[in-house]
C-alpha cells in the first residue's frame, strides 16, 4: 500500500515537473558574460575553476569543511582498535600496486597543475592520491588507520587551514577571499596544492579509518 502511494506520488510529481520544464522561458540573467569578462582578473584561465576558487571560492571553503566534518563524524564513532595488522596477499597484485601508486602520484600532480586551464584541480588530484592509498591498503601494503596521531591530524586539517588563512589574510584588502588580481593565480595554486595533499589524506581516511573497526569496544 505504502509502496503504491509513494510510487504514484513520485510519478505524478515527475510528470508535473517535466511539464513545467518544457514550458520554461529563457533565464532572466545570464552570468556567462560576467564570468568571461573577469576571467583575466581571476588568476586562472578555466571558467569553472575561476567560479570554483575565485568567484564562488567561499562555497569551496565551506565544502572542504564539510569533508573534514565527515571525517570528524567517523572518528567520533569511537574507533577502539589498538592494532591493525596486514594479512598475506597475492604477490602479483602487490607488485602491480607498487608500480601503479607512484604513477598515480604523478597523475595527481598533473591534474592539480592542469586545473588552471582545463578540467582538473585539487579535488580530482586528491581523489587520485586517495585512490592510491586505498589500492595500497587493499593489496595489504598499507595498514588501516587507527586514531590519528598529531602529525596525521596536521596533515588532514592543514590544507583547510591554509585555505582559511589565505582567505582571512585577504580580509585586509577589503573582503574575505578577495585575491589581488596580480597574485590570484599563485595564491590559487598554493591553496590547491595544500588542498590536494589534505584532500588525499581525508578521502583516504574516510576509507582507512573504518576498515579496522569492528564495532567499538
Amino acid at each position, binding site marked *: 500500500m505504502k509502496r503504491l502511494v509513494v510510487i504514484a506520488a513520485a510519478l505524478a510529481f515527475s510528470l*508535473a*515537473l517535466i511539464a*513545467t*520544464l518544457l*514550458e*520554461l*522561458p529563457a*533565464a*532572466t*540573467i*545570464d*552570468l556567462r558574460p*560576467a*564570468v568571461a569578462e*573577469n576571467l583575466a582578473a581571476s588568476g586562472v584561465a578555466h571558467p569553472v575553476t575561476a567560479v570554483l576558487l*575565485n*568567484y*564562488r*571560492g*567561499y*562555497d569551496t571553503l*565551506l*565544502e572542504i*569543511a*564539510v569533508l*573534514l*566534518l*565527515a571525517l*570528524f*563524524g567517523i*572518528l*567520533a*564513532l*569511537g574507533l577502539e582498535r589498538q592494532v591493525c595488522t596486514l594479512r598475506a596477499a597475492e604477490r602479483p597484485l602487490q607488485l602491480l600496486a607498487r608500480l601503479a601508486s607512484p604513477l598515480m602520484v604523478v597523475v595527481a600532480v598533473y591534474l592539480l597543475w592542469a586545473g588552471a586551464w582545463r578540467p582538473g584541480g585539487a579535488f580530482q588530484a586528491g581523489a587520485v592520491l586517495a585512490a592510491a592509498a586505498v589500492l595500497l591498503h587493499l593489496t595489504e601494503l598499507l595498514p588501516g588507520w587507527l*586514531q590519528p596521531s*598529531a602529525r596525521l*591530524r*596536521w596533515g*588532514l*586539517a592543514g590544507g*583547510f*587551514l591554509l585555505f*582559511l588563512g589565505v*582567505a*582571512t589574510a585577504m*580580509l585586509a*584588502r*577589503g*573582503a*574575505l*577571499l*578577495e*585575491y589581488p588580481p596580480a597574485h590570484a593565480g599563485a595564491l590559487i595554486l598554493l591553496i590547491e596544492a595544500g588542498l590536494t595533499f589534505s584532500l588525499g589524506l581525508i578521502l583516504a581516511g574516510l576509507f582507512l579509518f573504518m576498515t579496522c573497526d569492528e*564495532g*567499538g569496544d
Partner: protein
Amino acid sequence: MTDPGALMVWLILLPLAWACLAFLLGSGRGAQAAIIGLGLQLGLTLLLAVMLSGAGAASHAVGGWPAPLGIALAADGLSVLMLLLTQLIALPLAVYAHAYFAAGSVEGRYFWPLTGILLAGLNGLFLSADLFNLYVTLELVGLSAVGLVAAGGGVSQVAAALRYLFAALVGSGAYLLGVALIYGAYGTVSLETLGPLVVAEAPRAVWLAGGLMLVGLMLKTALFPFHYWLPSAHGGAPAPVSALLSALVVKASFYLILRLWLDPFGALVARAELLAWLPMTLGSAAILWGSWKAIRAPRIKMLIAYSTVAQLGYLFLIFPLLGTAGARQAGMMHVFAHGLAKAAMFTAAGVLIKVTGQDTVAGLAGVAGRRPLSLYAFGLAGITIMGLPPSSGFLAKWLLIEAALQQGHWIIALMVLVGGLLATAYVFRVLRQAFLRAPRAGELVAVPRTLELMAFVLAAASVLLGLRGVELMALLSIGSAA
C-alpha cells in the same frame, strides 16, 4: 573593526578556527579554545547588533565579487537576532559540556570539532544571501548534528543518527532541486537579485521549486508529520548535544523557511493566501501530537524531545499572520523563549539523570530535596514553556494571540491556549514526581556544580527575557520593509 562586513566574516571564521584547533589538540581537548572563541563571537554579535541598529542592514561581497557573480553575506534584524540567540545559548552550553565531558567519555572525544563546525554552519546560514551557499551551510549544520548524535557509536546512537541522516539528506536534496529549478528559471541564486525577478514573473517551475524547498526544510525542522526522526535523535544524545539540537539546529531550517517565505517567495504567497494555512495546520497538529506524546513519555529526555515537537508547532502558527510586524515578533520571541528554555530543560535533565543514574520520569521521585537547583532550573524553564508571566514564553504567546485576534483569526489564538494547557500537563508531570518522597534512599552520584549553574543561567534567562523582550524584538525592524 568598524566594518559590519568584517564582523560577519569573523562570526563564520572563528568557530571554524577553534574547531580545527580542537581537532589538532587531540581527542577530548579544545574546550578552553571553544569557550574563548564563543565569548568573542558573542561580543562580535553584540557589536554587530549595535552597529546595524544605527546604520541599518549590511552586506559583504565575498571575494570582492558582487552578487549575482559572487556570494553575498547579508545581515538584517532577523539574522542578527538568530546570531544573538545562537551565541547566547552556545556559550553556557559550552561551559556545561566542558564539565559534562570532563571525565573523558567516548561521546565527548570529538564534541568540540563537531560543535565548532556546527556553529560555523549556523552562523554562515544566518548570514548567507545565496541559495546555493545556503545549501552548503545546511549540510554543514545537518552533518555535524548527525555526527554529534552518532558520537560514541552504540546501537541506539548509530540508529538514531542514521534515521536523522536520511531525513536531513532527503530534506536538503529537495531543497537542492528547488535551487536547481530557480537557477534554471532566473539564472541566479542570489536572494537580493531574485526578489524583484520573482515579483515580475514566476513560471510554474518556480512554484514547484518553492514547494520542494518548503517541504525539504520542514523535514529538517521536524514539523509534524516529518517529526519522526527527532525524538530518538534529540532524546538519545548526551545532554549538551540534545540541548544544541533542540534549541538551535531545528531553528536554523525554520529561520530559512521564514526568510524565503517573506522574500523572495513573498510574491507567490501573496497570490495564493490560503497557502499560509498549510504550515499553520501542520503546526497545530504538531502541538497536539507532540504534547500528547510528551504527556505519556516514560523517559524524561523523550518527554523533553516531544515537547520540542510540540513547541516547533507554534512557530508555524504565525504564517497566516505574517503581514504584520507583530506576528514576526511573536515568532522570533518564541524562537528565543523555546531555545533558552529547552536548552535549560535538557541540561537540567542531564544533571538529574547523572545524579540518579537512570532516565525515567518515575525515577525522579524525591529529587527535589536533593538537587533543588537543577529542579528549580527545570521549573523555571517549564514556566517559559507553559507561557506563564513574566517569562519570554508568555510574551511570545501574548504577542501571537494579539496578532491573531487583530486579524480575526481566533482559531490561532485558541491553539496557543490549548498548547499552553497541554504543556502544563507534561511539565507538572515531572515536577510532581520530583516532589514525591523518595521510595528508597538510593545513592546519588556527585556532579560538578557548574552543570547545575549553567542550567539555571539558561532557565533564568528564558524567564527574565520576558521583561525586556519587546526592546529586543525591535531589532527585527532593521532592514525590513514593514
